[in-house]
């Protein structure tokens, strides 16, 4: 095996890139020290390939199509070290909410999985392993589970995660899970300049069913840059409802890559909810691989104060009779900026594919900004694709109607904001999650204490 040195670090490169290379080299020498032979190990080969691709692509700039609204220059001027493995420490994280006792929770801190497997789950229906052990015991399996590497410009950080993750969760859903599973991701650093690589692999066997909630929170003042990656693989007829909820504090930068692959007649409902963080980039790369696969994606993006939220969805229909529906609601107040880019690609042969994209934006201040771009790329005949995007302010007719009934302006506005989000909230089949998300959401809206009374 060739010594993995894809490029010599150069002073001309951003500090971040050099530090990622340093992390890579450190992991290589660590495995040598442990005298672990990586020869012929498909996982090591895959990671090396991922690192090579990442370095070839380099860090994104606003010249890249999918990064044109998000400038990482300030971020990438810094160098990063691994966030601490503080998994043994427990303690409540700020921003975590009580989803009720009916849920099973597994904890991850900075991407390091905390034992043990949560109670309340039937081991016949679900198997949970940490990736640190699994990568050592069965690297072939892990390599097989990871999605094919992509050269897409939007996939950079997923490549970096694949190259550098050291732990994470492998969740095999075998049966129909009655209890929703919460993955509580806690970000906690001891100072600035740390990076975490949380990795989650969900493998849903044919005919299985589960609700999985990834909840990102922080503990303490400092958070690492979080470069997380999750993949959902749905076997035939599998049914997954997945939530990713970003509820970290105003200092946290989060880049999350979600990869979804769906086999025949599988159904995925995916909710992306951004309520926290300073800069949140949430991408969804979904592939409807076999006929009858169906994806519903809901995005609820709340820009607040100085927050920057960039949500990028790419949904590719590979097979006939596949269906996708994307519903996004963006709200921007203060000096925040919210971006929702969605793209549907219908490949040759994906006849009778149906797709819908709907994005509505609501601007609550003069200095806030919302950019939304639905795109379509169709290579097949006989498809039904619709898209629409609108952004505006609160409807003056609705406002006047409510004022004319005696409601004060603040209450009327809050009710309208809440109503604007109703399409996404009512799509949630998990009432506990809905209630908790409503609570977190309402807390960030203007005049939240008023709104709470009207739920």
């Amino acid at each position, binding site marked *: 095996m060739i010594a993995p040195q894809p490029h010599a670090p150069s002073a001309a490169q951003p500090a971040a890139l050099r530090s990622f290379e340093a992390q890579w080299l450190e992991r290589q020498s660590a495995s040598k020290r442990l005298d672990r032979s990586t020869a012929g190990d498909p996982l090591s080969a895959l990671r090396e390939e991922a690192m090579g691709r990442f370095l070839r692509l380099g860090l994104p700039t606003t010249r890249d199509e999918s990064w044109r609204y998000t400038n990482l220059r300030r971020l990438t001027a810094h160098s990063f070290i691994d966030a601490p493995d503080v998994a043994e420490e427990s303690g409540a994280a700020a921003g975590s909410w009580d989803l009720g006792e009916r849920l099973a929770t597994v904890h991850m801190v900075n991407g390091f999985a905390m034992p043990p497997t949560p109670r309340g789950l039937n081991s016949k229906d679900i198997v949970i392993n940490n990736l640190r052990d699994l990568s050592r015991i069965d690297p072939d399996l892990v390599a097989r589970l990871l999605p094919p590497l992509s050269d897409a410009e939007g996939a950079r950080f997923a490549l970096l995660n694949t190259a550098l993750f050291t732990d994470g969760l492998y969740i095999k859903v075998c049966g129909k899970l009655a209890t929703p599973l919460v993955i509580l991701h806690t970000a906690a650093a001891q100072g600035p300049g740390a990076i975490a690589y949380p990795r989650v692999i969900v493998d849903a066997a044919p005919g299985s069913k589960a609700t999985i909630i990834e909840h990102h929170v922080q503990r303490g003042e400092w958070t690492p840059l979080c470069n997380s990656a999750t993949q959902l693989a749905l076997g035939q007829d599998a049914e997954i409802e997945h939530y990713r909820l970003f509820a970290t504090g105003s200092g946290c930068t989060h880049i999350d890559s979600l990869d979804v692959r769906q086999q025949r007649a599988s159904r995925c409902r995916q909710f992306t909810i951004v309520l926290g963080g300073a800069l949140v980039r949430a991408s969804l790369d979904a592939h409807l691989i076999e006929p009858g696969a169906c994806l519903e994606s809901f995005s609820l993006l709340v820009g607040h104060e100085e927050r920057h939220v960039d949500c990028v969805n790419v949904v590719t229909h590979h097979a006939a009779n596949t269906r996708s529906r994307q519903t996004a609601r963006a709200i921007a107040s203060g000096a925040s900026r919210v971006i929702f880019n969605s793209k549907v690609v219908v490949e040759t042969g994906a006849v009778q594919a149906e797709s819908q994209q709907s994005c509505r934006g609501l601007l609550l201040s003069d200095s806030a900004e919302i950019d939304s771009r639905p795109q379509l790329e169709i290579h097949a005949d006989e498809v039904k694709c619709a898209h629409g995007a609108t952004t505006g302010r609160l409807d003056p007719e*609705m406002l006047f*109607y409510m004022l004319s*009934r005696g409601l*004060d*302006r603040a209450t009327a506005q809050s009710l309208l904001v*809440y*109503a604007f989000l109703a399409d996404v909230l009512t799509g949630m089949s998990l009432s506990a999650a809905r209630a908790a998300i409503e609570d977190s959401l309402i807390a960030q809206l203007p005049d939240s204490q008023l709104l709470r009374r009207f739920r």
Partner: protein
Amino acid sequence: MLLKISDLSARVAGKEILKGINLEVKAGEVHAIMGPNGSGKSTLAQVLAGREDYEVTGGSVTFDGRDLLALPAEERARAGLFLGFQYPVEIPGVNNVYLLKAALNAKRKTAGEPEVDAYEFLALIKQKMKLMQMSETFLTRGVNEGFSGGEKKRNEVLQMLVLEPKLAILDETDSGLDIDALKVVSMGVNSLRDPKRAVVLVTHYQRLLDYIVPDQVHVLSAGRILKSGDRSLALELERRGYDWVMESQVA
């Protein structure tokens, strides 16, 4: 005098629509304002309710002893003025009952009363819905969401019955109603008739006045009240048309 409008003029989008309206409404009375399309009837109703993008350019309005034009829309409502909209807006996602409860509590708060008890409120609203012959599914729906024209009008009257305003201005509440719905809506309005309250009906047709008998009828045309009279004026208008009033003015 519950409502006194003196020489009121107003502009909409730069265009003078009301050109000196004078009208007095006493408690206990029902007035009908009739007139051809574009005469300013709806503008008058919206100006009285406090619509901000309608600019008052002259005149004054006192309501229950207060300077109405100085109050924002929400305070006018809390002071006891109610506008039944000609085209009630749909507000998907805001529940009918939430809105109505918020409205009632806003009014009670102004009057120094405690918030309405949840069970009492539900009982009240169910009783009024029964009177308006509305299905209970209304309780779970968004404000006017997916309602037919007739359902929207019933909902306006329902809101009026719950809020019990001192002055109800009903802007073409009869339009788009079939005869059965018209009877129900009229019954609702009549149930509110009371020596302490007044109703102003803005309408196109005399048909409504068969069911809600007015004390006075006014003909509005080109932003002015051209003629006032008792109920017989409405009947005459139906027979002879609005042109008759306009011609008789000229002559």
